[in-house]
């Protein structure tokens, strides 16, 4: 009898542990963003314009260089910073000046941003200035979209594709 009780105890122990593993392996459920919300992700990796344009070297300057390093032009490596903005229904929700990466400041500027917004109809506008100009933007894209709950709108940037891409 006592032996039988022990086996029942063992079975209960195994059942308890199995139930705990089964339950906590997927419960309680986690809600990532509030119900009725959508998400905008804006991310790009883009190099701004060079700070200085290339210029021709003078014959005297070329002559000063080692024979193996002689070239007609010289180009500064440093790039300008990028000014990026994201507007939601005419309100600026992201406004940043992104510095070029790399020790010499010649790498692309990068960003990765997430915004949780209420689902529904929104006017979304992305802007970027990647040149030395002082006012205005070199790239702008504006769209009015119906974002359904849980939707994730990606905003990417590709200069060769004409600028911002909403997808």
């Amino acid at each position: 009898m006592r032996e039988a009780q022990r086996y029942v105890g063992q079975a209960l122990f195994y059942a308890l542990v199995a139930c705990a593993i089964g339950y906590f392996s997927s419960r309680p459920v986690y809600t990532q963003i509030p119900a009725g919300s959508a998400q905008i992700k804006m991310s790009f990796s883009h190099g701004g314009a060079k700070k200085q344009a290339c210029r021709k070297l003078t014959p005297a300057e070329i002559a000063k260089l080692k024979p193996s390093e002689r070239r007609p032009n010289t180009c500064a490596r440093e790039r300008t910073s990028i000014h990026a903005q994201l507007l939601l229904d005419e309100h600026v929700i992201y406004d940043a000046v992104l510095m070029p990466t790399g020790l010499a400041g010649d790498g692309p500027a990068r960003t990765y941003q997430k915004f949780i917004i209420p689902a529904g109809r929104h006017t979304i506008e992305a802007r970027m200035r990647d040149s030395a100009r002082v006012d205005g933007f070199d790239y702008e894209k504006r769209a009015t979209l119906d974002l359904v709950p849980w939707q994730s709108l990606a905003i990417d940037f590709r200069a060769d594709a004409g600028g911002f891409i909403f997808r």
Partner: protein
Amino acid sequence: MDLFRRSVRSLFDGGEALIAKAFPPQWNPILNLSALSFLFYWIITASGIYLYIFFDTGVEQAYQSVEYITNEQWYAAGVMRSMHRYASDGLVLTMLLHILREFGLDRYRGVRWFSWLTGIPVVIFVFVAGITGYWLVWDKLAQYVAIVSTEWLDRLPIFGAPIARNFLSPEMLESRFFTFMMFLHIAVPLIALVILWVHLQRVAKPKINPPQGLVLGTLASLLILSLVHPAVSQGPANLSEVPGRIGLDWFYLPAYPAIESLPGSTTWGAAFTLLVIAVALPWMPPLKKPRAAVVDLANCNGCRRCYEDCPYNAITMGPRSDGMPFAAEAVVDPGLCVACGLCAGACPRATPFRRRTELIPGIDLPDLTLARLRDGVERAAARLEGNGRIIVFGCASGVPLDGLPAGTAASVPLNCIGQLPPSFIDYVLSKCLADGVVLTGCTEGGCRARYGIEWTKRRIARERDPYLRKGVPHERIRTAWVGRLGRKQLLALIGDFSAELAAIPRSGPCDAAIRPRPRQTQPRDQVDA
């Protein structure tokens, strides 16, 4: 820290005692946590190899192949998937409990820092392996895990382009990412296994295989769980949507909601702080190290018994250095010795009957020599009276030995019960120092010095050298492997045993009711000096 450690230990002692009501000592899961972790590892490996046959790496194919595994072949691959998943959860559970228990038992400081430290990367690798595994399914949970993981990594200023950009939109994801994840999911556990091998290097005869009954029970419960509540995917990943409501695996991903919502500096700072604390724990504060066992070559004939019995590989057999005609001599590495005394208990020269020469065995503990132990026995005997006198030999990690019934029982403390040479039992009974002997210590299977109880039991049963002399009456010996919380059981046993002893007719030296005279023995360290 000490209070916290004692609280943790009390929790484990309580849990162990509760579970011991249903499980025989050798099957008690609390006493087999590390072996169970190994069992789960092998289940994961075996089921993983089977799943790999059907798994396809590719953005679309990954999810489809897992769906095939789960639905089309539910009876084999589906069950394997569930076993793979639940064994992984079981591994985290037993691994974390193992860490907590070792902490509670204070088995992470002193010479045991090595096992503690080498266990830390294993924990990290187990989590990395589990997380990459979730990634491979490429369902909504995988999407969540992939994005939160990569976003967290991106918060470290060491990567170029954000890794999380790979998951910006469906068009950006490439199949080769899954190939890389598959590689990680196989490589990381293999590296963990190598580190585990290192982890066990300073442990003699590590317990890596649970007893058969526990294996069967665990396998059966995993199988039933897999059939009743199979692991399923949570819908295909879609990078155009936020996963929304996700069934998180709280064994592997409890930190993910915090990682997702808190700043990177906070989460990385917390992770780094946790790691530093874990690494520094063996020295917070450092263990006041007892002096290591010492070999007395004049009494050592190189018999290897101490070498065989040491639970931490602290003794090696080296070439004879004193010119005596023996093949080898015992050599103690003080850096590995925990001063449990199992070696002294194994030494055939550790006999208290020696009177003509000083009681110096081949190997002994300087802080608790066997000569002092013999003095302790005689002092204890002098406090006893009546016909049911008992000497209780107890280890420092077992039930506290104060408050035993005066006159009936007197205690002799040891570092570990395995420190007691069987000849001491013989000595007590044949010299009529007491009518009976009780040996007590940790719970069975839960010996702090790992093998103290097992070696003692086998020495008394004449299965392991040094044997208890054949003529010693076993009816005058009792064992009580009751642990720290077993005071009530020990007192009950002493009461009953004393009454039994009083009813047994005396013989030999006890017939004349000779009482020993307390005898002074010069302490060992003075002899050395």
